[in-house]
C-alpha cells in the first residue's frame, strides 16, 4: 500500500463569476522515501492539489469529489479533528515565499516551538532543545542566538531553512514543498535543494515537490506529474517524462526551454496563452494551444492510457499512434494474405 493515495481528485472554487474548476481528476501514489514532482505553469492547479490534500483551501474552495488516503485512512470528509493531527504532524508543508510565511511578530524560536508543543507531549524545555536540534540539522549557525531573533533579521535562504526546520520538527511522513526555491538565488537554491536531499536520506520522509522549474524537477524527483489547467497530462518516472514524453504539452514544454544546446537557435514556444479556468473546453484543455490537435481532442477529453508500467498519459495522440500501428499490422497481414 502506498503511503499517500490520491484518486480522481476534483476541487473547485465557487466564486461570483462561477465555478472555477481548479483541479479536475488528479490521481497519484506516493511511497515512503520517494520524491514526487508536480510540474505546471501558474493556474495549472498544482498548488490547489496539495492544498486539497491538507484541506487548507481558501473558504470558496471545496473538494467536489475524489479520495485522499494517507496510510489507508480516508482524509476527505474526515473532519477537522483528524486533519489537525495530520497537518504539521504527518504531512508538513513549506511555502514558496519565506519572506511572508513566517510571522514577523514572533521570534524564530517561538514559531518552531509552537509546532512542537502543538503536536507532541514535550515540555517547553524539551521543545526548546528539539528546536535547537532542528536548526542545527538544517545548517543554521549559532542556533541559540537565532532562536531569539525575529524573521526580518534573517536572509531569504536562512528563513527557508527555518521553515524547513519547523516543517520537519515533528518528523512528518510527507513533506510538501510548494515552490520552495523560486524566490531564492541559484546558489542559495542549490544549498536548499541539497539540504532537502540530505534530510530525506537521514529521516526517510517522502517529498512532494511543486515547481515550474524543469531543472529542479530533473535534479530532485523520482516521479513526475505534469499538470495543465487542472487536469493531469501525464505521470511517470523522471526518465520517462524527460526522454519519452507522451503528451503534447510536456513535449512542447521541453522544446520551449533554453538548454545548454540551444544557444544561437530559435526556441520553439508553445503558441497561444494559458487557458481561462472559468471556461474550460469540453475536450482536452490543451487542445486550443496544441499544434497536433485533432477533431476528437476538441470534442472529448482523453482517457488515461498506460504507456508502460512507469508511465501513464492522457493524450489522444497515443491512441492514434496505437491505432495506426494496429492498422499497419492489419495492412501487412492483409497484404500477405493477398499474396498467398
Amino acid at each position, binding site marked *: 500500500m502506498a503511503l499517500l493515495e490520491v484518486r480522481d481528485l476534483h476541487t473547485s472554487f465557487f466564486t461570483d463569476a462561477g465555478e472555477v474548476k481548479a483541479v479536475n481528476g488528479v490521481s497519484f501514489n506516493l511511497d515512503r522515501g520517494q520524491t514526487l514532482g508536480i510540474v505546471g*505553469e*501558474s493556474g495549472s492547479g498544482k498548488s490547489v492539489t496539495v492544498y486539497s490534500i491538507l484541506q487548507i483551501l481558501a473558504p470558496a474552495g471545496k473538494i467536489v469529489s475524489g479520495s485522499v488516503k494517507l496510510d489507508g485512512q480516508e482524509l476527505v470528509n474526515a473532519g477537522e479533528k483528524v486533519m489537525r493531527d495530520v497537518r504539521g504532524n504527518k504531512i508538513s508543508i513549506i511555502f514558496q515565499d519565506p519572506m511572508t510565511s513566517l510571522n514577523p511578530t514572533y521570534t524564530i524560536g517561538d514559531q518552531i516551538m509552537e509546532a512542537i508543543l502543538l503536536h507532541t507531549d514535550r515540555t517547553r524545555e524539551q521543545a526548546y532543545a528539539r528546536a535547537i536540534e532542528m536548526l542545527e540539522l538544517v545548517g543554521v549557525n549559532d542556533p541559540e542566538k537565532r532562536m531569539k531573533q525575529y524573521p526580518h533579521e534573517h*536572509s531569504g*535562504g*536562512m528563513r527557508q531553512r527555518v521553515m524547513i526546520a519547523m516543517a520537519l520538527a515533528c518528523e512528518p511522513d510527507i513533506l510538501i514543498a510548494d515552490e520552495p526555491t523560486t524566490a531564492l*538565488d*541559484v*546558489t*542559495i*537554491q*542549490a*544549498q536548499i*535543494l*541539497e539540504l532537502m536531499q540530505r534530510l530525506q536520506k537521514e529521516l526517510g520522509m517522502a517529498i512532494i515537490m511543486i515547481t*515550474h*522549474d*524543469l*531543472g*529542479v*524537477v*530533473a*535534479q530532485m524527483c523520482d516521479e513526475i506529474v505534469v499538470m495543465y489547467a487542472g487536469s493531469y497530462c501525464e505521470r511517470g518516472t*523522471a*526518465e520517462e517524462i*524527460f*526522454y519519452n514524453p507522451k503528451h503534447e504539452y510536456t513535449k*512542447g*514544454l*521541453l522544446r*520551449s*526551454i*533554453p*538548454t*545548454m544546446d*540551444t*544557444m544561437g537557435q*530559435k*526556441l*520553439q*514556444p*508553445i*503558441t497561444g*496563452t*494559458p487557458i481561462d479556468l472559468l471556461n474550460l473546453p469540453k475536450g482536452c484543455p490543451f487542445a486550443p494551444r496544441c499544434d497536433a490537435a485533432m477533431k476528437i481532442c476538441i470534442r472529448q477529453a482523453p482517457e488515461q492510457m498506460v504507456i508502460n508500467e512507469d508511465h501513464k498519459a492522457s493524450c489522444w495522440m497515443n491512441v492514434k499512434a496505437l491505432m495506426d500501428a494496429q492498422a499497419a499490422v492489419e495492412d501487412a497481414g492483409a497484404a500477405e494474405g493477398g499474396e498467398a
Partner: protein
Amino acid sequence: MAATNETPLVDVRHLKEYFPVSTGFFKSTPLKAVDDVSFQIRRGETLGLVGESGCGKTTVGRTILHLYKPTDGEVVYDGRPIKTKEDIKWFRTKSTMVFQDPYSSLNPRMTVSDIIGEPLDVHKMYSSREEREKKILELMDRVGLNSEHASRYAHEFSGGQRQRIGIARSLAVDPEFIVCDEPVSALDVSIQAQVINMFDELQDQMGLTYLFIAHDLLVVRHISDRIAVMYLGKMVELADAAEIYDHPLHPYTKSLISAVPIPDPKIARANKRIPLQGDIPSPLNAPSGCPFRTRCPYAEAKCAESMPNFDEVSSGHFVACHRTAEINS
C-alpha cells in the same frame, strides 16, 4: 553577431552609484550598489548581465540610462559623453528600458494606445493625430498584438501580452539600445520562449543592441553574445557566452554555473555542484578587498587587502581575481 563598428555603442567607464542609507540620527553610510564598473557594449550585440539579487545588476542598467544620477564615472554613448540635460534628453530617444514586472510597470488607468503613445508624446515624434495613431498600430503589430486591443486596459491582458505592451512602448522612440531588466522572469515557462524569440526577431529586424539583465542563467546563455557576472557591486568576470560557460575562471562564476539546475535528469544527477558557504554579505558592510573572499574557497590574505584588477586574461575574457592563474592551472 559580430560588431561592425570599432567604437562601442555604449561605453561605461568607472561607473559608481552610491545610495545614502541613514544609519543614525545624523549619520548616513553610502550603500555601494555599483562600485567602479567598466564595460563596453558593441553595436548590435546582446550583453547578458547576471548575478544574484542585491549584486547591483538592475542599478547598473538604470544608472546607464541616467534614471539614477551616477555618483561617479561616465557613460559614453556612440562617442558622446552623457553629461548635461540635453545629452540625457538626446540619449533617451536612443535608449529605452523593458521592466521586469509587466503587472506593475503599466499604468492601470491608461489604455494600451496611451501607454504605447506616451513616449511619442514626450518626444513629440508625430505631426498629426493620424500619424500618432498609425505609429501606435504599427508598434502593436510589430510585437504581435491585435490592433483591436488598442482601446483596452492593461488588466485585461495576460502576463505575456502585458510584456508585449511594455516592449511596444520601449520601441516607440525607435531606439538603438534597450536595457532589458529581467523581462521574462515573471512569465510562465511556455510564454517565456515566445518573448525570448521576439527579442531575437526584433534585434534582427531593427539592429537593436541589448543589455539583458537576468538571473536565469540558461535564458541569458541562450540570448547573449557576451556575458558579464556581477557580485556585490563589482564586475567579476566578462567573456563570450560560450567561453564563460565552458571555461569560467572566477570562483564565483564557477559556483554560479554549477548551481544551475539542468533540465535533464541524467545530467542533473551527475552534475557536481560547487557549493558556496553562507549568504551574500550586506552591501552596507562589504568585505575589504575582494567582495567574494568571505565565501570563496580559495581566499588568501592578499584577497582581504586589495580589490583585484579587472584584467583581460585572454582575448575578450576579463576576470577580477588575484589567484586566476593558480586556481585554473
